[in-house]
């Protein structure tokens, strides 16, 4: 009984940090690779081309 409870708690608590990390990671990729604000675009210009993101 105790073991069961422990296992289910562990699995719930380990998927939420992973989800958070995925969202954070995708957020960073969106900012560096996709947001079209001109300052960001100019700063990331060469990287976007070299990494294969749609740029202009």
């Amino acid at each position, binding site marked *: 009984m105790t073991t069961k409870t422990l296992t289910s708690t562990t699995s719930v608590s380990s998927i939420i940090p992973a989800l958070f990390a995925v969202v954070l*990671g995708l957020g960073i990729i969106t900012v*560096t690779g*996709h947001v079209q604000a001109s300052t960001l675009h100019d700063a990331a210009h060469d990287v976007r081309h*070299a990494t*294969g993101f*749609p740029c202009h």
Partner: protein
Amino acid sequence: MLARILTSALFAGAAAGLIVALLQLFFVQPVLLHAELYETGALVHFGGDPVSAHPELPGLFDEPMRNLLSVLFTMLTYTGYALVLVALMSQAERQGHVVTARHGIIWGIAGFVAFHFAPGFTLAPEVPGVAAADVGARQIWWVATVATAGVAMWLIAFGGKLVSYVVAALLLIAPHVIGAPEPDTFTGPVPTEIGALFAARAFGIGMAAWVLLGAFAAYFWQTESARDAAAA
């Protein structure tokens, strides 16, 4: 758990990103700068006189701010990728799969296919000055293709059933059958030789980048896990 993911992703992303940035500055940037001479009209080919294929290009230290920003944004981009990669590694491990640095190399190749090669297969890495459809439409296609290819790679790696492979193949092929947004007319002023070299270099560095990222991510994930286990 969260601290472990964040720490290992940060180490892996920063380390891989730094190496990749240097590779890009050395191998991709000169091709990009060469293309920009045609994009801006400083050079014109097929205009009359033959144009030298080896013009004077700005050196690595002629535009320090531009190149520093490139290094910074490459490190950030690969940290973003690393966060996704390590999070997925943690889930694979939870399902009983082993993730060592050697496995990380395969993870990296799968990441390269999902994030770089699958979208680039139809929306080829763009040299500056290339004709292209609306950027918003291309971004939607890019995100959809990366998402379907990502799911496909997971199914190939962990599905284990015939139907998983079939679904994965369909997911990999579908975006390219549907087709990416394309320009109405070709207006690119850049010679095809430069465009082809640019795409080849972008893919080559991209693959090296992802192999490094996969190996580093798995290595740091293992190291951080071992440290946690020792502390517990």
